[in-house]
C-alpha cells in the first residue's frame, strides 16, 4: 500500500533539505552554488495560476468549524452511548459539509473501529492520513492505524507502526 517512499522517508528528506538550505545560507559566500528551485506546495500557488484573474466569481471558501463541531459533539455523545451507527451518520454528515477535513475522517475511522468494522476503519484512517496537513494529526492517524492492525491481529505491523510514529514528537 505504501509503495516505495514512506512518509517517514519524505519527512526525513524534507528535514534533510532544510538542513541543506540552512547550510547553504550560512555558507552562501563560500560555495555560491545555485539553490534548487524548491518550494513547499502549500505556501505558493503553482505558476500556471499566477497572474490570471479568475473570470468566474469565486465564492468564499466555507469555514465550517462551528457547524462540523456541533456534529462532532453529537457523534461523541452517540459513541458514548454505544450508538456507533448513529455516530457514523453524524460524522458522514459533517464530511459532506467539509470533505477534506482529516479530523472528521479520523473520527469516522474511530467509530468504525468501535463498531468492529475493521476494514472500513483502516480505509478511513488512510483517507485521514492522505488529507492530514498537520504533522500531529498525521501521527495520530498512523497510531490509530496501528491500533486497527492490532485489532486485526497483525501484531508485528502494529508494532512497527508504533515504533515508527511514537518517536515523532508533537
Amino acid at each position: 500500500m505504501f509503495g516505495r517512499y514512506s512518509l517517514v522517508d519524505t519527512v526525513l528528506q524534507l528535514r534533510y533539505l532544510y538542513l541543506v538550505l540552512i547550510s547553504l545560507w550560512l555558507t552562501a559566500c563560500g560555495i555560491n552554488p545555485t539553490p534548487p528551485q524548491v518550494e513547499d506546495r502549500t505556501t505558493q500557488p503553482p505558476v500556471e495560476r499566477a497572474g490570471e484573474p479568475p473570470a468566474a466569481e469565486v465564492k468564499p471558501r466555507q469555514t465550517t468549524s462551528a457547524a462540523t463541531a456541533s456534529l462532532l459533539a453529537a457523534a461523541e455523545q452517540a459513541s458514548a452511548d454505544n450508538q456507533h451507527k448513529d455516530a457514523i451518520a453524524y460524522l458522514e454528515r459533517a464530511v459532506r459539509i467539509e470533505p477534506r477535513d482529516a479530523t472528521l475522517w479520523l473520527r469516522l475511522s474511530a467509530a468504525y473501529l468501535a463498531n468492529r468494522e475493521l476494514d472500513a476503519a483502516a480505509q478511513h484512517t488512510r483517507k485521514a492520513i492522505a488529507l492530514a496537513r498537520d504533522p500531529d494529526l498525521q501521527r495520530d492517524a498512523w497510531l490509530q492505524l496501528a491500533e486497527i492492525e492490532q485489532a486485526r491481529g497483525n501484531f508485528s505491523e502494529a508494532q512497527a507502526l508504533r515504533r515508527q510514529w511514537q518517536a515523532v514528537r508533537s
Partner: protein
Amino acid sequence: MATRKSKRRRTSATSDSRWRLAAKFVLYSGLLVTLGVLGYLVYLDRTVTSTFDGRRWSIPAQVYAQPLELHAGAAIDRFDLQAELQRLGYQADANLRNPGTYKVRGDALQIYLRAFQFMERHRPSQRIDVRFAGAAIEAIYNETGEVPLIRLDPATIGSFFPAHGEDRLILTPDQVPPLLSEGLKAVEDRNFDRHVGFSIRGILRALWVNLRSGERQQGGSTLTQQLVKSYFLDNRRTIQRKLQEVAMAVILEARFAKEDLLTAYINEIFLGQNGTRAIHGFGLGALFYFNKPLSELNVSEVATMISIIRGPSYYNPFRYPERAQERRDLILNIFHRDGLIAAEQLEVALQQPLGVIASPISGGAYYPAFMDRVRYELQQYYDREALSSAGLRIFTTIQPRKQEAVQAAVSITLNDLESSRNLPSGSLQGAALVADSQTGEILALVGGRKGRVDGFNRALSARRPVGSLIKPVIYLSALEAGMHLASPIEDSAVTIQAKLGQSQSGEAWTPKNFDGAEHGSLPLVRALAESLNLATVNLGMKIGLEQIQQRFANLVGREPANRYPSFLLGAESLSPVEMLEFYGNFASGGFRTVPKAVIAVLDEQGKPVSHHPFALQQTIQADDVGAINRALEITMAKGTGRSSPYARHGVAGKTGTSNDNRDSWFAGFDNRQVAVVWVGRDDNAVTGLTGSTGALRVWNMMAARDPLDPLQHMPSQQLVEIEYLTGLRARANCADVVRLPMTNEQLQRLPVKPGCGIRNGFGGRLRQWLGE
C-alpha cells in the same frame, strides 16, 4: 321448446314427464344462475377486498434529495436561499404564521421551517433568522440563540410505484384536513355517512336529469362508486358496468369503515396529468397544483382541488382559470351553506386568486435519470414489492440546484453546438455526472438532453470508446515503475506487428498522432498534456500492456474488454458512470470510491432500515496520485484543455475523442467535485466533435454555474521548475517552465537546461559535501 299442438298429439304420460322435465330444467338452471351470481359476487368480493387492502397499505417509497445545510460560512446568498425555499414550496408570509413560510427582512431571511423526520432525528418545526454577509451566510438564530447548523427539509424527488407512471403521496386519516373530508362529502356525496354504497335517489335523479336534457349531466355516483371506478373500471358507460360498480361499492361498504373508504378515496382519486405522470390523490395533487403539502392549503385552495375532481381536464385551473374559479366559488358557497366555513372565511376565500403555481412541479424535483441509479442501488437490497408498497423513505445524495444547473449546461450547449456547426437539430446527445470527489456521492446525474423525459439513460447505460480519457492509467503505471513526469519518452512512429498476437484485426497496427506529426523526445508530462498517441503507445509498450490493464482493473473494479495494444489509446468502452469511478481514483487523492446515490433507507416509522456509508479503498500511493493530478492540471493549463476559460483556475482534467470523432469526452475535477461529460450520437455516427470542442464546452458551462474550488496540493511534495518542452531543469526566466513534484533523488539525476544558471550535479556534490 315444443309447442302446445305437438304436446296434445302425444300421450298424457309423455306429456307429464315432459312437463316435469321442463320444471326440473327451470329449477336447475335457476339454481345454476343463482350459484353463478353468488360465485360472481364472491369473486367480486375477493377482488375488491384484496385490491382495497393492497392499495390502502401499499405506500410507495418516497425518495428525498440531499437537504441544504445552513451554517455560518455556507456559500449561499439570500437570493439563492430564497429560490431554494420557493423550490420547496415555502410561501412568502409577512406574519410567518405557519410552517412552510418565509419572510424577507432587510438583508436577512426569516424562515418558519417545517418539521421533518431526518435520518438521525426528528427536527421539529421552528422559526429561524438567517443573516448574510456578502455571498455567504453570516449567522443563524432561532428562539434560543445562535444555531451552528440547521438544514432545510429535503425536496421529494419521486417515489416508486408499480408500473404505469402512477404515483401517490399516501395520507393517513389524521393527515387529512377536516375541511377536505367534510367538503368532499358536501360537494360530491351528501349522504355518504348514511348510504350503503349507492343511492337510489341519486341514480334516479341522474337518470331524470340526463333523460330530460338528452345528454349526460349528472353522474349520481357516490364517493364509494367513484372509488371503485378508479380502482377497476374504465370509462365505458354500460348497464353491466354500472351494475358491477354498484355491487362492488356495496361490498366495500359492507367490509370497511366509512373513514377508511374516505381516506382511500382521498389517496386514490385522479386529479390531473403532468406529462406521462398521472396525479392521483390529494397529497400529490396539492404539490402539483400548489407546490405545498396538503396540510398547508387554505380554504380557497381546498375548494379548488375539490372542484377539479368533476373533470380534471375540463376544470384544469392552468388552462381554464375562469371555469375553475367559477366552480371553486360554487364550492366555497356550498362550504358556507353547510356550515363548514364562516361568512368571513367565505368572503376572504372568494377574493383570493386561484393561486395555482404557474409551472407545475417546476423545481419540484423529478429526475428520472438519477432515479434510475437509486433503483439500481436499491435492487441489491429490496425487491420491487417492498419498494413500491412498504412506505420506505429513501435519502439520496442528489443536490437539486446542481442537478438543474448540469442539466441546463448539457441542454443549452448541445443546442449551441448544433446551430454553430450546422448539425441536424436534435442529433446530438449527451450525459453528465458530478460527484463529491472525496465521498463518491453523486450530486447530479444527467442521462440525456431532456431532463424530465424518462428515456435511455446514457449516463448509466451508454458504453462508448473512451479515447484519451484512458491515458492517465498508462502514465500512472509509468510513475509506479520508477519514472517521473520529466522522464523522456519518444514520440515517434511505432508499428506493432500482428505476429506478436497483439493486433485485433491480425494486421500490423500503426497508430498516429492527432496532428499526424512526430514530436521526438519529450517529457511524460507533455506527452500526457498534449495527449500524444505515439509517445503514449511507446510508453505503454515499455511498461507492459498487461501491467497497465491490471492497474485499470484495480481502479474501476472490472477487467478491460480489449486485450490488445489499442487499449492504450482508449479502444475500450466505458459508460459515463464507470468513467466517473475511474477518475474518482485521482480526484479523491488515490482512493477508489464507487459512485453512490443512496445514503440511507428508513421505514415508515422513521426507523433506519439500512445505511449506505462511504465506501473507499486506497488504490494509488499519495506521491503518484499527486504527480498524475499535477500533470492533469497542466493538461488543462497548457495542453488539450487550454481552450477552457477555466483552464488556469486550479482544475485537473482530460479530454477524449474516439475514432473519427464519434464520442467526445471530458473528465475533470477541482478540490471538491469530479465531473464526467460525454457528447455523441445515439446511432454512433460521426459528430465532428473532439473532446475539447464538445464535452469540454458542456463542462465549461457547468463551471460557469457552479464556482470552482481550486485544487490543493499535498504538503509533502516539493515542486521543481522544469522546462515544459524538454523536461530539463530550468527557471522561469530562461524557459517555459512547469512545476512538477520531484524527489531529491530524481532531481539530482535530471539534466539541466544550459544557460539557466543552474549547475549540473549540484545535488550529488552536496551529498558528497555532507559526507554521504
